[in-house]
């Protein structure tokens, strides 16, 4: 493992210090998937928010999106992803327009493998 190089900058606290290995671990059904982590402030309904995604052991994040599985719909806006810095991605303009269970989905490519990650979060 190349080591954890993830740094988090909280949206509301732009001067927050960089924290190695912070954020929640994302789940993947792919065997031996390298670790991916995500961090964000609790979003408000219908308000845009930012997530930070870190992918360890190389590879690149291809897409970040979200769905509401119980309702069979996704988000109404395309998130925009910044150019990564040291394996860290900043993704803006995610919007959860309904309360309930959402799945944040990250698709990555690592060593020519497509790996899907998911993080479950409930929005009140």
């Amino acid at each position, binding site marked *: 493992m190349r080591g954890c190089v993830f740094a988090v900058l909280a949206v509301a606290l732009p001067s927050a210090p960089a924290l190695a290995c912070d954020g929640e671990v994302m789940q993947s059904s792919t065997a031996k998937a390298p670790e991916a982590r995500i961090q964000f402030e609790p979003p408000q*309904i219908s308000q*845009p928010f930012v997530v930070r995604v870190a992918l360890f052991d190389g590879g690149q994040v291809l897409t970040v999106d979200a769905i509401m599985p119980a*309702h069979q719909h996704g988000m109404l806006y395309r998130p925009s992803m910044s150019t990564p810095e040291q394996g860290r991605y900043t993704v803006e303009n995610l919007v959860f327009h309904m309360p309930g269970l959402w799945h944040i989905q990250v698709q990555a490519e690592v060593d020519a493998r497509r790996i899907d990650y998911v993080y479950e979060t409930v929005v009140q």
Partner: protein
Amino acid sequence: MIRRGLRVLLAAAGLWGSLPALALAEVILSDAEIARLSAFGPWPPVAEPDPSNRFSSDPQAIALGQALFNDPILSSDGLLSCASCHDPEGGFTRPVARGMGRVLLDRNIPTVRDLAGLRWFGWGGRSDALWAASLHPIVDPTEMAHAPEALKVSLLNSPYAEWLEQLLGPLQGHTGEAVLVNIAKLLAAYQETLVSAPTPFDQFRLDLLQGQAVSYPLAAQRGLQIFLGRGNCSFCHVGPRFTNNEFHDAGVPYFLSATRVDPGRHQGLQRLLSSPYTLDSQWSDDPARTGAWALRSVRQRHSDFGSFRTPTLRGLTDTAPYMHDGSLPTLEAVVRHYSEINTERLHADGEAILAPFHLSEREVADLVAFLQTLSVPDG
């Protein structure tokens, strides 16, 4: 902290001395339901100026905007004002199914209260700024039908000329289009001030969250439980405004006639994306283009067709009839529509939210009782 001990029925007489008798009510909501109420306030929201409108929050502009809102000078033949449809004495709408401009319009007249700070405006969301939403009816040939240059001439020859020039500078130096946009911004500055007052629900929510004894009818509480629970109402009618301000298929037919349909959000988005009057346009006064991210990143979906903006539920008792086409005359009819919704009318690729939930007669009355508490009582 809310304690069960507070949830008792108190006879107010005797507790309040000389105050009018006030029946304090039992609280039947669960702790989880009470916790969810936090998201429905506070009300009113903190007023913030619209950076895309340099007249926003300017008292002089607001006063002029109000005068223009009520004056038919904005229509080409001097017959229609904004207030002709958005009646200040009638919840800023009219009690008709569909608006009447020069012809019978396709949609119900939405209230213009509580619009400040929204992301989209109109049933189809054709505007991303209140000033843009205020501009379209002035030039729409089915509504006020005023060409920009003719509007400028009308205003130059009106009692408003001097007042306008105090705010805009010499009108002769403006194009007709610039005058049109500025008039729309004055109208928007006024409409931003149209904020509904706190309601019995707001007081109930506040009392609960502060651990105070409450005065709120049990029927309304039972209706609130349906609203938060099996009715699934609060998926879309959420937040202090009771709307997520997005677009949904509510199972209301969108045929205007045997040969015409109302495309709803699909058409609204097409018009928005081709509009010269957006937060991302030269007409915005905000160099930072705040809010333009939504226009840039909004997704176009098959299910936009026949979807309409979720309206606020505040002030509902002033704004009958209901739905985008005004087809439901009463709150009871709206509740029955959702309770027995015809899922055959819903998009196959739409959201799997709505399904019949078969309210009893008492439950229909309860949900209506709750909805009525989102308005300020008469008198």
